[in-house]
């Protein structure tokens, strides 16, 4: 492989590997914008991965699997929403519970599916003429359809957040729910909506792993990607476009390790596998140092909203 081809191949792999993190990060971003911290991303992704896989195996239709994955992620998020919004439980602990429960339940449900193939995994579908552009084509437009949908989703979400009235309301939910309430915004039901939406995206990210990326089911196959997504939302300063850049950067680190191994760089595979985790901490240090430790996080993030106590 020439150097140029290697770079193209790493960049393309960065996007392939970054997409599940992107979906999960966008979902978390939406929930956090609404003021709810959901640390259950890892659990929701795993449930999405296993339910998507089961749905695809049962019907032979990966699109059906995808729908199941989003349903599973959404239901998991609904639990979190009920606990944190209605019962005003501690968001950190509830999110941890969601991750632990999702890890256990997905391992339980998926036991019989280990080593099974996906009937029709999402395959690479080059995007017509776009795929023929030199360099950019193979990097951006020779992927499966879920990768393309990721591009579109980022743009849609950006437009929604910053250019629409409902997007403004969403930001208000997380900044100052009392003021939003006074404006007549339905704080409780909208927070429910966005937390569940976030869970559906996490489920989608999980299904991407089991139906397109791997494509197979393995216990704990997310390997911390859900947590990396949580960290990415901070890195992204709650902006979808920055989340896209961050996700592909992480995909790149992932891909880099794999490629270094392939061309026989004498570094232990265990150290290469550490890269994304070390990098997550480093990236946070750099971003936070540049922000002087003062983040522009949603003002009411993590604080339960109680009408009577405002």
């Amino acid at each position, binding site marked *: 492989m020439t150097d140029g081809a290697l770079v193209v191949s790493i960049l393309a792999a960065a996007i392939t590997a970054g997409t599940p993190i992107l979906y999960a990060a966008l979902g978390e971003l939406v929930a956090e914008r609404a003021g709810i911290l959901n*640390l259950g991303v890892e*659990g929701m992704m795993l449930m999405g991965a296993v339910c998507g896989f089961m749905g695809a195996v049962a019907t032979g239709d990966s699109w059906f699997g995808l729908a199941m994955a989003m349903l599973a992620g959404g239901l998991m998020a609904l*639990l979190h929403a*009920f*606990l944190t919004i209605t*019962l*005003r*439980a*501690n968001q*950190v*602990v*509830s999110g*941890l*519970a*969601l*991750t*632990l*429960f*999702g*890890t*256990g*339940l*997905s*391992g*339980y*449900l998926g*036991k019989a599916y280990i080593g099974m193939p996906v009937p029709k995994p999402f395959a690479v579908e080059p995007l017509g003429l776009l795929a023929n552009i030199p360099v950019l084509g193979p990097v951006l437009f020779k992927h499966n359809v879920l990768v393309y949908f990721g591009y579109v989703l980022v743009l849609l979400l950006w437009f929604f957040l910053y250019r629409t009235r409902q997007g403004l309301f969403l930001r208000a939910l997380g900044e100052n729910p009392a003021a939003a309430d006074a404006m007549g915004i339905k704080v409780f039901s909208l927070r429910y909506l966005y937390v569940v939406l976030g869970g559906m995206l996490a489920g989608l990210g999980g299904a991407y792993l089991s139906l397109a990326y791997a494509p197979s089911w393995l*216990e704990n196959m997310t*390997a*911390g990607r859900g*947590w*990396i997504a*949580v*960290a990415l939302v*901070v890195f992204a300063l709650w902006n979808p476009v920055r989340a896209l850049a961050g996700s592909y950067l992480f995909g790149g680190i992932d891909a880099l390790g794999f490629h270094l191994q392939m061309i026989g760089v004498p570094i*232990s595979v*265990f*150290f290469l*596998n*550490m890269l994304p*985790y*070390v990098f*997550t*901490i480093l990236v*946070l*240090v750099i971003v*936070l*140092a540049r922000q002087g*430790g003062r*983040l522009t996080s949603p003002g009411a993030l993590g604080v339960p909203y109680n009408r009577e106590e405002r």
Partner: protein
Amino acid sequence: MLFRVEKRMTTPPSLMVLVPVAAACAAMVFCALFLLLTDRSPVAVYGAMFEGALGSEYGFSETIVKAIPLVLCGLGISVAFRMQVWNIGAEGQFYMGAFAATWVALNFPSLPAVVMLPFMMAMGVLAGALWGVLAAWLRNRFSVSELISTLMMNYIAILWVSYLVYGPWRDPKGLNFPLTAPFPEAAILPSVGDSRVHAGLLLALVVALLLQFVFRKSRWGYEIRVIGSSPSAARYAGLDIQGNALLVMCVSGALCGLAGMVEVSGIVGKLQAGISPGYGYTAIIVAWLARLHPIAIVLVSFLFAIIQVGGFMVQTLGVPAAVATMIQGAILFFVIGADIVTQYRIYRVSGDGSEVND
């Protein structure tokens, strides 16, 4: 008919016990749905789990053996959680403790037990503490959330141990299995009779009593609780929040590191990949269910060890062991959901707003 919810000033002690117990039962029912969904009889599975964990001498001793790391990690986690420092890195600190203890056992094989065991303990504690303090330092210096840093460091620690047992530390006589050479006799914690229950149990109980004293009676125990419940009040009172963050993560990591040392020295007798089936994560649930009280942590650890061993035992019936994690996660869910009953008073009011007594 209307319901009104009002914050309780005090919680009756009976509720503090009743509510978690009821919630745990509800969680078992909830998980029974998933068992039914996969065509398994919940009664048979739960029955087999309890039978497996408590019904034989072997099962019972296994349950105690599994409770030991849960107690130590749970206690470690409780120190940090009391200050609302979210150390979810117990798993990584456990691995680092196991790694450091193994380093001693492999490099100084001729030490006598009286020197060897304390040395291993000291190194295990030190490694766990350093791994924890690193996260606290990142939090103080760069405001990196310890939630994320400790979790990332779990993966790093596990990969580090994997690197060692697959690489430089692999036993040449081990038929290529990823494990180190067995420890010398002096590096093994003494055990009770011919069971696998080892001196780590005593250690765990002593630490629990010690922490009970620290939390209840010491000024520091009070300080970290104040900081945890109201950082702004603590700052106003001149309490050193950053210094205490370092200290709680140091103690927290030290105890989890000790758990790792105890496990390699008391049970495994060597270092191998996957020495923890997720003790560090289960201990988070344990600590929270026990409301961060040391004595309660001991009791809840034992209950969770029953579930863990039970989950292992029902594998013979073809039930995946992950059933244990599922039940444990669900219990945490239901307990935090049920907390509304302990923190708030719910009562019915009639149409005109007066309280209905019934």
